[in-house]
């Protein structure tokens, strides 16, 4: 099975102190540490597990610049067979639809049975997977938390439903799936793995390579533009429970019940 995973490089939420820039329309990006968007990492792991059982190849693609090569190498160290960087000046400032357009161009160049994306980008919405499927006229499922290959043409998948339930479906290939975190346990990528792929060539494709019309991508084509960025102010509402451990536990359970947590 030929699998393409669309990945994205985002500021690592666990290793950054996110602050607004003075203009208030973006976060302060100096001193930020980036890593692969976590749901995408689960998608790559899932792809690797599928090819380990069913055979095939895993390709990872990202839209971005040279600095985004970092995550591609990490995913190759993880075990992806190929990585490609989709990079062009005209891609800059693309919105979700623009990115889906670029990815569509790449998918059509190849012969992929399955396209995976993370369920959402940690620094943006959950836009690309659905749009990409629509543009390609592929089947689509989101919030996928298990995949089983039935035969060469079908998958059995389950999708997360509110309340922890699962909806089990069969889906025809080729298709696009957006992968929920928790579908697997992504393997660790060590320094050694990254060093081993450090010198591998990562091919770069531009708009003309992908047959993407410049008018459909980039800032000019974007129909969604970021206007503002809001960081919630620290508010009230925190309460410190007192009493013995048993009392605290009882109060906590009561509160959780009252607020619908249980």
């Amino acid at each position, binding site marked *: 099975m030929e699998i393409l995973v669309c990945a994205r490089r985002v500021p690592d939420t666990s290793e*950054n102190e996110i602050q607004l820039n003075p203009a208030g329309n973006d976060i302060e990006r100096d001193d930020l*540490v980036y890593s692969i968007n976590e749901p995408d990492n689960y998608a790559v792991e899932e792809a690797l597990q599928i090819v380990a059982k069913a055979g095939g190849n895993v390709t990872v693609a990202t839209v971005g610049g040279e600095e985004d090569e970092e995550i591609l190498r990490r995913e190759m160290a993880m075990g992806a067979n190929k990585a490609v960087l989709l990079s062009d000046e005209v891609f800059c400032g693309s919105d979700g639809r623009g990115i889906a357009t670029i990815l569509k161009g790449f998918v059509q160049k190849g012969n992929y049975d399955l396209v995976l994306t993370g369920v959402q980008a940690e620094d943006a919405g959950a836009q690309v997977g659905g749009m990409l499927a629509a543009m390609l006229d592929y089947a689509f499922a989101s919030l996928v938390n298990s995949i089983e290959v039935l035969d060469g043409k079908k998958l059995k998948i389950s999708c997360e439903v509110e309340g922890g339930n699962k909806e089990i479906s069969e889906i025809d290939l080729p298709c696009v799936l957006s992968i929920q975190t928790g579908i697997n*346990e992504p*393997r*660790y990528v*060590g320094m050694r793995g990254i060093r081993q792929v450090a010198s591998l060539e990562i091919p770069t494709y531009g708009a003309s390579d992908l047959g993407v019309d410049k008018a459909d991508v980039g800032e000019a084509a974007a129909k969604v533009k970021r206007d503002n960025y809001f960081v919630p102010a620290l508010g009230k509402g925190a309460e410190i429970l007192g009493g013995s451990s048993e009392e605290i536990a009882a109060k906590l359970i009561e509160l959780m019940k009252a607020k619908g947590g249980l």
Partner: protein
Amino acid sequence: MITPAQASWWITLCLVIQFLGIACFVFIVTKRIAPLIRAEHDFRLDRPWLRAQMLLKFWFGQWKHPRYRVAGTLHLFIFAGFLILSTRAFYLLMFGLADDLAAPSTTGGIYDIVADYAATIVFLAVSAAAVRRVFFKPARYAVPERYGKGHPVDAIFLLALIAILMVSESLFEASRTAIQIQQGATADFLPLLSLPWILKDVLGSASLASLWKLHLVAYFVDVLTFYFLLCYRPFGIQFHVETSLFNVFFAKLDRGTVKPVRWGVNDERLDQVKSFGIKKFEDFTWKHMLDFYSCADCGRCSDNCPASAVGRPLSPRFLTIKARDYAFEHFPVFGKSSNSHALIGGIYSDDEIWSCTTCGACEEECPLMVEYIDKIVDLRRGLVDDGKVPKSIQKALKALESRGNPYGKMEKKRGDWAKEKEFQQSCTVKVLDGKSSAKTLYFVDSISSYDDRIQAIGRATARILSAAGEDFAILGAAEKDSAHDVRRFGEEMLFQALRDHNVDAIKTSGVSRIVTSDPHAYNALKHDYKDVPPVEHIGQFIARETKAGTLKLNDVQGSSNVYAYHDPCYLGRHNQVYDDPRAVLDAIPGLKRVEMSRCRDRSFCCGGGGLMLFYEPQEEERMGVKRVRMAAEVGANVIVTACPFCMVNIEDAIKVSGMEGKMTAIDLAELVDQHLVREVPQPEAKGNEELIHAHA
């Protein structure tokens, strides 16, 4: 009586038995050595004199045995008896039948007397050991259900064989003496109350013919038992009789270190190594396999292992026993050796390997110098190489890679602990940022730099250095995690990257010595880093400066606190710093100090430092909780430690065990800081006094 023809028949039979016995033994041992030849290299021929000393102390001197009084003493007797009797056994086997089937005493004189007593003592010792096994059943010999069934019969069988050997040898002598007496010849001297002496009297009334028969039977039972035992030993724990000499001679010499990924492959060439760590049995080094053969299953390692004590799925004893059984099964004496399987998922589980805190209690205790930490680290290297790392640790490792600390905090905030307002009024900490210089580097490390609670230890350390007039500074943002536990968690390449960064920063700073308040950083700087200035733990620094009078300490001011010092593993066991911290405590006038039952080299790990803080173990109880209880048992109400990780674990343990208000924990540096006699500049005298009280 025996005719010369009969005698030569007996002698021939005896020679055949001997030849078969030796041939069997050589065959079995050759088979046992087979996996060692296929194993990884391990260079163990360096420093032969030191190794000879080790042999003298730990093998010949049985140094560690008396740590367990009863078992140790019994073993001491058996071991000494064996050494003494080996000469006689050799003589008996070679020449026993040469002189008309009744060789006169071996070398004669005093040796014979000693040997007779030795046989008696060994007989008594194995009897006592058997009684102990059967009736008293010490808990540490029990085999927990998850490790399969115990083999109590094996131990008894072995003891019985030794007893038979002693009795048959003595009977051989006793019958000969009885014959001599009946024949009216000069009888050999048998020492009073020795086994042959007792047996001789028992045999006194027997007929001469039956005495001759007994004499021969005793001899053949002795020879047969000897060779049976010889060939039976390589099949179990009794093999240590042969292997212990080698295992102790080739023992690890450098405490606190971790073996390289591959012996003989330097860091620059590591990229060419195809697979890291231990994944299958053949990935162990030959010395580690020898460890498996040498284990006597005495259970002392697991008896001291904190992970075993709290019910984590790890027992050093079974780490070895399982590997030994694997070796026996896959490299059998009869039949072909079979293909190797993955160890993790086979005989070991992931959690078993991650459960170890590398505290070193097992290695400290093992009388046979079996190594554990290097094996655990090598097994972890294999897990890391295969990407099998628990998620919580993956996060910390990732943060270490991108930010140089496991918390993912900003590099530029690493020195912020020293900018706290109140602290800055009493102490300024220079940062070695290229513009300033200092004689001494205070290597803070991640936890003391970023953890809100632990920063207090950093500030106390800085105040002490300052009070001693030390020209010191920190690296600030240029410092990264010492990576001590990154290495011990098997992520060697990340360790090397962080180490190289720090070595570079330290060298550039131009300092001539290093002080740290973190035993893990201390161990890393001392053993894992190369070419850095000498390093000292703050406890050692304080001990020296109080002795020299540079630092003066106030008395306890009527406090009735009872202090117990908890030895951090990486200060105590791994670096043998036991006395300095105690000397510091004793330098505080009026301080009442008690020792926990498990102290010094038997200290009980708090729960583990470094990345262990990020691991979520399966356990019934926290190690820290056990430790806090140990302090309470000896009547202490303050636990003094000298390690930031111990502080985190012990303070947590005090909370979860509901001992808040009854027990507190304090770092040695914090305690000293509270009792410092500060040089008080006259005009600000009042303000400074308030400060002392504020800290006290």
